[in-house]
């Protein structure tokens, strides 16, 4: 591929022309990347820099870029402040979400990569489509399902003469909602990972007398690991920043960290404090991402190639 890019077949015929095109092609990739780069600098990097700047501004002020203080961070780490609870809740819910999703999504990913054949296109679309419905709408559907007098309660009453379980507005309901919303983000990287496992390798292991557990543990899992890791990373990062599940299904019984950040920005009108919390959340996300990415490369070196 790189041969075709840098030296065209016409090289021997007209060196001058090729030379010119070579120069053009060298920068062609960079020129194509330019619009995306500009958008991300103005729409991603600059906002994050602003958040970092705000986190060092006077509490309850809007004097960004003019004042410098560590007060916001000091107040977060003050032992009297219970905001650390929100961090713990968010991290715990995200960890449980990832664990649950790994179990829920693995058989489906295996089916999509191996078993469903020509049906896998349709099944994939069925799993992608919910992404296009606002997550609030889908979560509210679950409220209608679980609520008193709702679908579950009503069905049980009619059929069994019993009442539905009271699951709404509990941490369990929040976890359920997060598993529900982030399923596609685990499923598709996992499917990609599993489809990278060469079939003849599995066949060979079977012919050599490996048991199914051995095949899974020694061949499938290590070879599919890059995809599974990407799925886990993606779902963890998104789940740590999730807020809609806790608000809609949790009925605010738990305040997750993103909710705390929102409160600081809206009711409390304390943008610097909210920014400081956001910076801490971003640091956690960055640390997890870097850790996972380093693992990912390691797996690639050990497992593939």
């Amino acid at each position, binding site marked *: *591929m*790189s041969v*075709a*890019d840098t030296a065209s077949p*016409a090289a021997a015929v007209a060196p001058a022309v090729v030379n010119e*095109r070579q120069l053009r*092609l060298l920068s*062609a*990739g*960079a*020129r*194509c*990347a330019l*619009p*995306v780069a500009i*958008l*991300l600098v103005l*729409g*991603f990097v600059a*906002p*994050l820099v*602003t958040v970092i700047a705000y986190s060092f501004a006077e509490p309850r002020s809007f004097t960004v870029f003019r004042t410098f203080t560590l007060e916001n961070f000091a107040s977060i780490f003050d032992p009297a402040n219970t905001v650390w609870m929100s961090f713990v809740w968010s991290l715990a819910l995200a960890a449980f979400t990832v664990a649950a999703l790994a179990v*829920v999504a693995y058989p489906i990913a295996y*089916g999509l990569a191996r078993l469903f054949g020509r049906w896998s296109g349709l099944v994939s*679309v069925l*799993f992608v*489509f*919910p992404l*296009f419905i*606002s997550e*609030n*709408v*889908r979560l*509210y*559907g*679950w409220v*209608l*399902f679980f609520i008193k*007098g*709702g*679908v579950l309660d*009503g069905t049980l009453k*009619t059929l069994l003469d019993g009442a539905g379980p009271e699951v709404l507005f509990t941490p369990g309901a929040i976890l359920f909602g997060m598993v529900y919303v982030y399923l596609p983000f685990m499923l598709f990287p996992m499917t990609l990972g599993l489809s990278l496992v060469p079939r003849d390798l599995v066949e060979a292991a079977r012919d050599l007398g490996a048991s199914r557990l051995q095949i899974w543990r020694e061949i499938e899992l290590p070879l599919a690991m890059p995809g599974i890791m990407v799925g886990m*990373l*993606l779902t963890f990062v*998104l789940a*740590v*920043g999730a*807020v*809609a599940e806790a*608000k809609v299904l949790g009925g605010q019984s738990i305040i997750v960290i*993103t909710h705390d*950040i*929102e409160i600081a*920005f809206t009711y409390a009108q304390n*943008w610097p404090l*909210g920014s400081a919390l*956001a910076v801490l959340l*971003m640091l956690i996300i960055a640390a997890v*991402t870097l850790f996972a990415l380093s693992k990912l490369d390691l797996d690639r070196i050990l497992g593939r190639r």
Partner: protein
Amino acid sequence: MEQSTKRTKALIAAWTAFVVVAIYMPVACGALASVGKGRYFTFPIRAWSSDWWTRTLDSIEIGQLVRTSLLIAACVTVVAVVIGFFGALAFARYQWLGRRTFQKIVLLPIFFPQPVLGLALLLWFNAIGVPLSWQTAVVAHLVWIVPVVTLVIATQVYSFDPTLEEAAFDLGASRWQVMREVTLPILWPGIWSGALFAFLLSWGNFPLSLYTTGADSTVPEWLYAKMVAGYTPMVPTLGTMSTIGAALALMFGWIALTVARRRQQSGG
């Protein structure tokens, strides 16, 4: 051995079917809640009615919401496809110095919690003195949707043979001709899927819109506001309508894509 493999297959198929049913359960619940007569949802439904559907369709306020949402989604689609197209070429087509770094950086906004990104954009717009409106929401959506579109188109670009472009150049085609006659027709299915993703993801987006639309309001924002305070059956009704609209768009897109693929395969 044969027996147990068969059983595993059946179990996996059954599990997948169960999860698919679970995924569409809340959608079905919303649809049910929209056709009950009462002000509050009870199941089983005692009196059916299409009242809330006609009322939602007649509402001027909701018409305005739908127009704002469509306007934002349309602008996002056009801009995201243009930027994403070139981004995808840089991502997968050209071998250039910063390619690996570029590939990782493009992914960053996808790996970032949207509520925090929305708030960060709010601070940034405020700091540079840009008043919030549907236009700022377009920018906010783009930050997240352009990377997605770039990835979607890039998967098509990977299967693209760059020597075709080379051949056209060698035969004396201009840059513009190569783009119009070679590159675009080959990448068309990817571009079309990218446009579909851009439109539908923008249409359904809530966390970015919440902080960046200012006085303008989109459909997901209105739904959320009413869920928190002031429930009416118009909430599940509009939610169901929005879902049906997205499903129709997806079906239309899929049919167009299949037609385009067929035409490409037959060499037209």
